[in-house]
């Protein structure tokens, strides 16, 4: 990692960036699904963020900024290029209708593991938006900044992602998935 010229900015960078380490790693591994790639991605993110810290504008959202760097680095990685797809935001979501109510199944017997397995089956663009909203507790505005998409698209993509997750959970039930 390159050393910045300005110690003060390095100190404030550390203050802002280090507390996000665990979350960034969790997000990186959800994206890559590979431990080594996630570790490389986190290190690359910190190196790039430090190098570009002079362009970060104080008072703007640092968390969205560094997550955007991580996601961008992921998209440029070999693993990321494999999952890059053109997303039709306006068209139908191509998901089958949900006949049962998987939420009620969740109430009864869902476990953390089952939801994790269902999340793994989702396309990356659905998985990442669910993680940013529900795990990272980002506002729609922060998500829009992180993913570089309009706020309206955040709402529609999130809605489609949640529907896809319900379908995935429902399929686990129909496929005799463990515990469901």
């Amino acid at each position, binding site marked *: 990692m390159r050393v910045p010229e300005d110690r003060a900015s390095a100190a404030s960078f550390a203050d802002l960036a280090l507390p996000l380490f665990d979350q960034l790693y969790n997000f990186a591994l959800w994206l890559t699904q590979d431990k080594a790639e996630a570790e490389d991605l986190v*290190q690359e993110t910190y190196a790039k963020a430090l190098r570009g810290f002079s*362009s970060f504008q104080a008072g703007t959202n640092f968390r969205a900024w560094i997550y955007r760097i991580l996601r*961008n680095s992921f998209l440029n990685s*070999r693993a990321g290029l494999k999952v890059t797809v053109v997303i039709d935001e306006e068209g139908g979501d191509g998901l089958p209708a949900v006949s049962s109510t998987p939420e009620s199944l969740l109430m009864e017997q869902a476990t953390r593991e089952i939801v994790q397995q269902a999340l793994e089956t989702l396309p990356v663009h659905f998985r990442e938006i669910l993680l940013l909203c529900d*795990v990272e507790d980002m506002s729609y505005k922060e998500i829009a900044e992180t993913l570089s998409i309009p706020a309206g698209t955040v709402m529609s993509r*999130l809605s489609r992602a949640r529907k896809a*997750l319900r379908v995935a959970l429902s399929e686990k039930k129909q496929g005799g998935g463990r515990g469901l």
Partner: protein
Amino acid sequence: MACNEWRDKLDSYIDGELTPAEAATLGAHLRSCAECAADGLQRVQMKRAVQIAGKRYEPSTDLRNKIAKSFEAKSHRGIAPKWKFALIPALGLLAAAFLLTSYFGRERREQQRVYSELADLHVATLASSTQVDVISTDRHTVKPWFQGKIPFTFNLPDLPGSEFNLLGGRVAYLEQVSGAHLIYQVRKHEISVFIFQDRGDEMRSLPSGPENAASFNMQTWMKNGLRYFVIGDASKEDIKALSKLLQDAG
């Protein structure tokens, strides 16, 4: 308002994204509509389940130490305390100089950041086992491959008779925007050509001409609303020659 319209707002309600007035109105409806309330409850449970399931991975101690050390290293590079007082007047002068040069310095840093990013992309691609996603020496194969993948089109030069060979292309991202990344070969050197759409931001302020990024030779210019970067470890002359071919084609 019909129930299905309320339900369209349920996610935003649960995510805390409605205005206080909207949230109050929806809250009142939920108290009077058992079906919507049940739907809302299920969505809350789903959100909570994702919240728990999503916190899944913890970084290794090795990685934690590696990152922490990279920051520690910087704090030890400070100036020895006994020199600090002697430096105060000098710092005053430096501050004045800094004010004069900060604007230009900031602009230059921004340029260097973009160049470093491109150098990273170039190196990472060459290190990859799959350097290109479309493998072809034929510009009539490579150019159409980008259709639908990037938000613009571009022209590529015809190369017969030149020393340059087109190896293929891939999609690259710079500042969250997709663009074309082409790889050319001259003798044993591989050269990256990046093409991005002009977004009217800092890219426009980049100077045209030869540059240097992480010891790579580079040439950049703007033409027809597109920003071109040619970067590689080939000689300045080779970079310039390939740039000329691209400029004439574009």
